[in-house]
């Protein structure tokens, strides 16, 4: 049953083909057997998951089931989970057990889903390879010498390795889409404000957004139906009405206008990856879509702009980790200053410290106008580029990443080349737009992701296009060899 989609599993549960307890047990067994290869989970929630599964079975027995009742879901270890350690991939929160659930978790629980465990991630979501995790890197099921991408690398690896039917991730600059692309799964970053940020450990508040990661667009739609919606406890969450994201999946693509930004197909894009993308676009064209070449003129400024704004916000979001109230505290501090400096020196990893330094610098008196303020101005221009394009087209398409997954260690000593990994994904966060990645082929056995970018709150359209593509292709159904072992 681990090869089934969420939609199929939900049907199986409702038809009593198997119980949620059996299903959950099966995934727990697979995690035990196979996750030694992937290191995709930081915490497995075995006992509580089985309890929740039994509760779900009782609901199913009386016919009181929702779309996700009894479905095991893995959550990125950035979502606070009541009673379950939430480390955020950091030593700083190695011992942190939240007394509350993130709104996203609360919604999954209310929908009857089973919390399978917490997945590996780059420390505080800062990274594109999962190598900055304090708990060791997660590995790519397609080739365990490769990175799974980041920061939601654990979620992507868990889904690709069939250790969970679906997972959640967060995306601040590509952290759902890039690992989805690297691991050959489907991932959606919703519009900023579509999903509540409450209870998600903050990285960059104006960019962070949670979304679903699964095998198919249909499964992502099922999850988004649970996740999306206004939260009065998150002031930045939107009051724009949600829709049933499953309802329009089958809509025709006839007349759809797809924009292809020249900047996403130029220098820096791996040739074979580019061919995969072009083939995917031909498929969409065959279904009635029109391809329109256009330009996002400020694309070159995306990386510097992002790497001012995100670290600036992160530098202050991470100030609360001071060893005073919770989390890591250094041994025997001599005084207050020693408590602060050693706690943070020992509790944070290199990449996190680098970004705190960069962000602190960008906000400092005398530099604020030149960096942070300027970056915010450019951010508006980048957003305007997209708005201009959406006058002409319905969605924008291109590669999710410049190339497929790279080897562990290949870029870990070169932050700049690592940052370049996100060149096609960052602008979407800066503009607050919804974006998704779906499997579109392979380069030497490594998955390639097609990125789709939509208008604000047009998630339904992205999912519709992705679903129609997946009805005509089977890239998303491929299973890595490493996942074929294990039980069931």
């Amino acid at each position, binding site marked *: 049953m681990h090869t089934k989609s969420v939609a199929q599993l939900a049907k199986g549960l409702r038809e009593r083909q198997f119980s949620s307890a059996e299903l959950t047990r099966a995934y727990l067994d697979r995690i035990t057997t196979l996750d030694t290869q992937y290191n995709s989970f930081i915490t497995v929630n075995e006992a509580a998951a089985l309890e929740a599964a039994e509760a779900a079975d009782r609901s199913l027995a009386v016919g009181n089931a929702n779309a996700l009742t009894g479905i095991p879901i893995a959550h990125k270890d950035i979502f606070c989970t009541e009673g379950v350690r939430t480390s955020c991939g950091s030593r700083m929160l190695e011992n942190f057990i939240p007394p*509350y659930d993130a709104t996203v978790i609360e919604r999954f629980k209310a929908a009857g889903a089973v919390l399978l465990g917490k997945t590996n991630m780059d420390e505080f979501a800062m990274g594109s390879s999962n190598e900055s995790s304090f708990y060791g890197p997660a590995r790519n099921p397609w080739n365990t010498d490769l990175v799974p991408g980041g920061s939601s690398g654990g979620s992507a690896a868990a889904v690709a390795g069939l250790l969970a039917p679906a997972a959640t991730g967060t995306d601040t600059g590509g952290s759902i889409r890039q690992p989805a692309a690297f691991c050959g799964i489907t991932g959606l970053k919703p519009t900023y404000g579509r999903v509540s940020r409450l209870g998600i450990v903050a990285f960059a*508040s104006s960019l962070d957004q949670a979304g679903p990661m699964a095998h198919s667009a249909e499964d992502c739609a099922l999850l988004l139906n649970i996740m999306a919606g206004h939260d009065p406890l*998150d002031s930045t969450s939107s009051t724009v009405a949600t829709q049933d994201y499953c309802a329009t999946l089958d809509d025709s693509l006839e007349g759809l206008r797809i924009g292809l930004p020249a900047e996403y197909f130029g220098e820096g894009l791996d040739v074979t990856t580019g061919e995969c993308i072009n083939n995917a676009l031909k498929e969409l064209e065959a279904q009635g879509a029109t391809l329109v070449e256009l330009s996002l003129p400020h694309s070159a400024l995306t990386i510097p702009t992002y790497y001012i704004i995100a670290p600036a916000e992160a*530098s202050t979001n991470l100030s609360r980790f*001071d060893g005073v109230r*919770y989390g890591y505290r250094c041994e025997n501090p001599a005084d207050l200053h020693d408590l602060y400096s050693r706690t943070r020196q020992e509790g944070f990893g290199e990449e996190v410290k680098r970004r705190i330094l960069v962000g602190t610098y960008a*906000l*400092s008196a005398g530099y604020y106008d030149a960096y942070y303020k300027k970056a915010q101005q450019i951010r508006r221009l980048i957003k305007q580029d997209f708005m201009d394009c959406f006058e002409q087209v319905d969605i924008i398409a291109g590669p999710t990443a410049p190339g497929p997954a790279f080897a562990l260690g290949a870029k870990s000593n070169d932050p700049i080349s690592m940052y370049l990994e996100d060149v096609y994904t960052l602008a979407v966060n800066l503009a607050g737009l919804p974006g998704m990645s779906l499997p579109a082929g392979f380069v030497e056995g490594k998955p390639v992701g097609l990125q789709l970018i939509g208008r604000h709150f047009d998630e339904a359209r992205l999912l519709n296009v992705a679903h129609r593509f997946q009805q005509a292709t089977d890239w998303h159904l491929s299973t890595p060899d490493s996942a074929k072992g294990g039980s069931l």
Partner: protein
Amino acid sequence: MQWETIIGLEVHLQLATKSKIFSGSSTTFGAEPNTQASAVDLAMPGMLPVLNEQAVRYAVKFGLGIGAQISKRSVFDRKNYFYPDLPKGYQISQFDAPIVGKGSFEILMEDGSSRTIGITRAHLEEDAGKSLHEDFNDHTGIDLNRAGTPLLEIVSEPDIRSAAEAVAYLKALHSLVTYLGISDGNMAEGSMRCDVNISLRPIGSKTLGTRAEIKNVNSFRFVEKAIHHEFQRQADILEDGGKITQETRLYDADRDETRSMRSKEVANDYRYFPEPDLLPVVIDDIYIESIRESLPELPVEKRSRFTAQYGLGPYDANVLSDSRPLADYFETVAGECGDAKIAANWVQVELLGQLNRAGSAIEKCPVSATALGALISRILDKTISGKMAKQVFESMWNGEGAADDIIEARGLLQVSDTAAIDAIVDDVLSASAAQVQQYLDSDEAKRKKLVGFFVGQVMKLSKGQANPQMVNELLAKKLA
């Protein structure tokens, strides 16, 4: 050299909202440490602020109360610094887009003169928690009950010229905010905390000197003392040819001195930037107007009405309009007895005197305004003398009942029976033949004194119950 003192005040006013500015925790004072701190107040991971609308409403009320510009769009910013009682490592405040812009209000000095003090701005922010340095064996305890309490920081222009003006400003501010009902103004509980910016310049000079900021001065008296002390310290330095260092100083009330805070405690680059977890606060004219309509009569308006309507002098009007309960009390007394001037006198002298001696407040006064009005009516209708009334008031204060009951029970009715008084006057005059002769031989000035003597004798014989006016009239007739 003659120095002019230039003072600007920053007042941190605690707003009287039921819950905190960004969380649902209670703001009640005096709870057990950390019992009023939620996950938001503790800055637990993933927690987000949600703005308390009541705090915005109160800030707008204040702005309208000082005739200030209200910003239709104001922005919260993060002020970053590390301190154990600042859980997030930043304070949510407002930096360059505060909710209240320029305004002003009038302060009245004891000599009746008045001055207008400019308000630069007022902005919303959250309070920090408290560090407790005692009782923890060389450790510091943290109480986060206060963390997240809404504050309005009110910044004045450097328009204040003396300690007396500073105190008058604070009293006027206190009066205004309690009128508006936006703060309990309880200084002992830290509801109004004050930072004093002070510099000196030679009288006649137009340029400002270097200032020192004295932090956290928490009573009217300490403000006065701190300014006096700081004036002397700066004058001494300047007169010795020295220079004032721009710095933050702490007022030590126990030693009555200010001292420099270690530079480590103050040398901060706060790295202000817009708080990404909150949207800008956008309000419209309808909102502002609805608040304007709900404003009560303000102290300044009440003061001028008291002058116009009751013919009170500016000082009396100021004292009586100082707080809403006192003003209401006075107006009830005046209405009951029908004579505002006597009512004003009684409320200020007898009533406030008693309250001060008892260390009590008008809200807890054992004599109701109606009861005091009834007592004054008995003076006006000549049932008792003013002197008698004071005794009756004492009895009323002690809970012995209404004025009329006490007057009757004690037989204090004033004697206005002409025959009875006539007899006593005759007795006094015949018993004081020498003084009568003296009176007849004297000039006008001396006679006045002797009349006083005769009146005193009559009052003594009548046990104070003779109507003094009638006694005077009879004496005049008989001595003519």
